[in-house]
C-alpha cells in the first residue's frame, strides 16, 4: 500500500526533474490529452518546474467540455418533460446549453438527478416504474463501459422505462484531429492512462507510425506525469518515434478485454461534433441498432435544434491548445466556476477551471 504514496515522493520527483533537465537540449512541446492530467500538472506546478524543458499544451480530454452543445440542449429538452427523470453525472448539471442548464431546469421543477454510476439510473428506473428514466451518457472510453453495462442490466431486468441519451467520445480520433490541424505544434503526446486501461495500447501504434510522433501512456500521480515527460523527451532527443507504456501497473497492452467486448456489443462508432472543436469523423459511440429501444433520441421526439455558442467564450481555442485559459478576456472576470460561460470552466477536468483553482491567486496577487 505504501507504494501508492511513493508516487508523490518529492525526492524521486527531484530525481526525475534532474534527469529530464539533463536530457533535454531544447524546449519540447507536449500535449497531455486528459483533463485529469491537466489538473494534476497545474496543481503540482509541474509546468513551472519544467518551464525550461517543456511547453504543455492542454488537450481536449475533458468529457464534459467537449459534449456538443446540441446534445446538452437535447438533454435539457428531455429533462423539461413532465414524465421524465433525467440522470447525469454531477459535472453536467452546470454546463451551459444554448439558453439554460440542467441545474436551472431542475430549479424550475424538472426531475434531474445526479448519479455516481449509470447503474444508479437503472436502479431508479426500477424503483419508479411510472417515470421515464433517461441516463445522459457522456464521457470517454473510461465511462462508456459503465453505460454499456447499464444498458445490458436494464434489458436483463426487462425495464421498459429506461433509455439513454448517448454522447460518448473517443480519444484516438481527437489526437488525429490535433495532429492534422495545420497549426499543430504537438511534438509528443502523453496519452491518457485510464483510457488505455480499457482500450489497451495497440490503437496508438498507427498514429505513432503515420504521424511520426512519440506517444507515452502516462498515469496521473505527479511521478507518473514526470516519468511520462521523461520518456517523451528521451524519445524526442533520440529522434525516435515509439509508443511507450509508462503506466504498466494499470495498463496492459490488451486493455480490459471483457469491457471492450461489451462496448463492441452495445455501441457503434459514429461521427461526432466536439464542442468548441467541430466534427471529428468516427470519434464517438452511439447505441448500435440492436439496442435502439434504449435510445432516448428515438423515444423522445427531439427537434433538430440549431444552436450558437456564446461569442465571449474561447473554450474552442482552449480545447485545441491555441489559447491558455488566463489569456481569455473573460477568464476570472465575467467567467468563473460559479457563473461559467463555457464548459471548460465548469468541469473538474476543464482547463479553465484548473487555472482558476490553482493559478488565480498567483496571477492576481503576485504570489505569496
Amino acid at each position: 500500500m505504501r507504494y501508492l504514496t511513493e508516487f508523490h515522493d518529492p525526492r524521486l520527483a527531484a530525481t526525475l526533474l534532474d534527469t529530464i533537465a539533463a536530457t533535454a537540449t531544447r524546449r519540447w512541446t507536449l500535449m497531455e490529452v486528459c483533463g485529469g492530467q491537466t489538473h494534476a500538472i497545474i496543481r503540482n506546478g509541474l509546468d513551472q518546474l519544467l518551464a525550461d524543458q517543456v511547453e504543455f499544451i492542454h488537450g481536449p480530454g475533458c468529457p464534459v467540455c467537449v459534449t456538443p452543445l446540441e446534445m446538452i440542449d437535447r438533454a435539457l429538452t428531455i429533462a423539461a418533460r413532465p414524465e421524465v427523470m433525467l440522470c447525469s453525472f454531477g459535472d453536467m448539471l452546470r454546463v451551459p446549453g444554448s439558453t439554460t442548464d440542467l441545474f436551472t431546469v431542475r430549479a424550475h421543477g424538472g426531475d434531474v438527478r445526479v448519479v455516481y454510476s449509470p447503474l444508479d439510473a437503472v436502479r431508479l428506473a426500477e424503483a419508479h416504474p411510472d417515470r421515464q428514466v433517461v441516463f445522459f451518457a457522456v464521457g470517454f472510453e473510461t465511462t462508456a463501459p459503465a453505460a454499456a453495462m447499464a444498458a445490458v442490466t436494464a434489458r436483463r431486468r426487462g425495464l421498459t422505462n429506461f433509455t439513454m441519451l448517448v454522447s460518448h467520445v473517443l480519444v484516438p480520433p481527437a489526437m488525429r484531429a490535433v495532429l492534422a490541424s495545420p497549426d499543430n505544434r504537438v511534438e509528443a503526446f502523453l496519452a491518457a492512462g485510464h483510457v488505455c486501461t480499457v482500450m489497451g495500447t495497440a490503437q496508438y501504434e498507427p498514429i505513432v507510425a503515420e504521424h511520426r510522433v512519440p506517444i507515452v501512456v502516462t498515469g496521473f500521480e505527479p511521478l507518473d506525469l514526470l516519468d511520462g515527460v521523461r520518456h517523451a523527451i528521451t524519445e524526442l532527443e533520440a529522434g525516435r518515434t515509439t509508443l511507450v507504456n509508462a503506466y504498466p501497473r494499470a495498463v496492459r497492452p490488451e486493455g480490459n478485454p471483457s469491457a471492450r467486448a461489451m462496448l463492441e456489443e452495445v455501441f457503434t462508432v459514429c461521427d461526432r461534433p466536439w464542442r468548441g472543436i467541430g466534427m471529428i469523423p468516427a470519434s464517438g459511440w452511439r447505441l448500435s441498432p440492436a439496442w435502439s429501444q434504449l435510445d432516448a433520441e428515438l423515444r423522445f421526439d427531439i427537434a433538430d435544434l440549431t444552436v450558437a455558442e456564446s461569442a465571449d467564450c474561447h473554450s474552442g481555442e482552449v480545447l485545441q491548445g491555441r489559447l491558455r485559459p488566463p489569456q481569455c478576456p473573460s477568464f476570472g472576470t465575467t467567467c468563473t466556476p460559479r457563473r461559467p460561460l463555457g464548459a471548460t470552466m465548469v468541469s473538474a477536468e476543464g482547463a479553465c477551471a484548473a487555472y482558476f483553482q490553482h493559478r488565480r491567486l498567483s496571477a492576481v496577487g503576485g504570489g505569496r
Partner: protein
Amino acid sequence: MCLGIPGRITEIWDDRGTRMALVDFGGATRTACLAYLPDASIGEYTIVHAGFALTVVDEAAAHRTLATFRELGLLAEELGPDPLPATPLQSTPLPAEEGGR
C-alpha cells in the same frame, strides 16, 4: 467522472448475478461493479470509473517503476552531486505550515 484513483477492494458480493465490491479510497468507501474484473479479489487495488472497476493495479509493476526512479537517482549521484536545491514540489506546503505555527 474521470479522476480515477486506486482504491482497495475490501468486500465482494453478488447482486442478482452481478459481482459488486466495496472499495476503500483511503477512508472513503464506494460501491463498485466488478463485471469487467471477474478475477479481482479482496485486498487488491483497483481503478474505478463511474462505479466500475476497470483494472487491477499490479503491485509488482509499481515496485519496478519505483526501482527505476531510484536507479536514476543513484546514476545522478555517480555522475556528480547535483547543486540544485530541493524542488518546489517539496516546498509547496511549507508556506502554509510556517503560517500555521
